[in-house]
């Protein structure tokens, strides 16, 4: 009861104060209505389009981010792919190099073997020719020695053979022929 009386008194005092300031309850109500209308108008005309714009912008940003992520992923895949291709190319190049080195070595070995075989054949042929030449030369020398020896023998025999020697020689020859023919 006391509280009610106190509230009533406070309200009365407040009304007196508003009266003194020239503010009435109806003007307050009008202001409130104007405020509500303003708020609704602002909500409809400004806040909603801005919110929509922000949402659209957010979606656009999200879309760009997604595209960016996709691009990054694609770039990453391309990078991986290029690295893989590069690695394979390097491996292939190394294999080709190794193969080329092997082929070159094989070829070099073949050439070397062929050259050695040719050199050996040449040496063998030369040795054979030298041997034949040496034998021929030896035979020539032997023949010349024999010729000279016989020439010397002829000279010596022609000069030194005596009449008696000649006679014995003739007798021996005739005896030999006779014995041979008579058995």
């Amino acid at each position, binding site marked *: 009861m006391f509280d009610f009386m106190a509230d009533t008194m406070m309200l009365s005092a407040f009304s007196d104060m508003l009266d003194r300031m020239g503010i009435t309850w109806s003007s307050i109500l009008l202001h409130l209505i104007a405020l509500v209308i303003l708020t609704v108008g602002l909500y409809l005309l400004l806040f909603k389009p801005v919110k929509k714009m922000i949402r659209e912008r957010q979606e656009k940003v999200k879309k760009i981010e997604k595209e960016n992520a996709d691009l990054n992923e694609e770039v990453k895949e391309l990078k991986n792919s290029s690295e893989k291709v590069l690695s394979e190319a390097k491996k292939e190049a190394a294999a080709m190099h190794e193969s080329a080195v092997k082929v070159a070595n094989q070829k070099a070995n073949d050439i070397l073997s062929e050259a050695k075989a040719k050199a050996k054949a040449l040496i063998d042929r030369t040795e054979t020719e030298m041997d034949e030449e040496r034998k021929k030369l030896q035979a020539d020398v*032997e*023949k010349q020695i*024999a*010729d000279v*020896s*016989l020439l010397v*023998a*002829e000279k010596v*025999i*022609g000069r030194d*053979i005596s*009449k008696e*020697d*000649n*006679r014995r*020689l*003739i*007798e*021996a*020859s*005739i005896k*030999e*022929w*006779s014995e041979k023919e008579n058995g």
Partner: protein
Amino acid sequence: MAKEELVAKVVVSEKPDDGILRLVADFIKQRGCYRAEYVIDPDILGGIVIRIGDKVYDGSVRSRLETVRQSL
């Protein structure tokens, strides 16, 4: 050809003595030849060569040296 017509050709290096002449005459006679024609050829160096028809008996020093040459 008759035996009397067959002539032996005898080559010696120097003039033969009677002993050699007899020996040669006997030798050719045994082979059906009764005449000999002597030729002195110092190139045979010594010994004797007798040809009776196609048969040749070569006992010359030259031929012996030639045999030695061949064998060498």
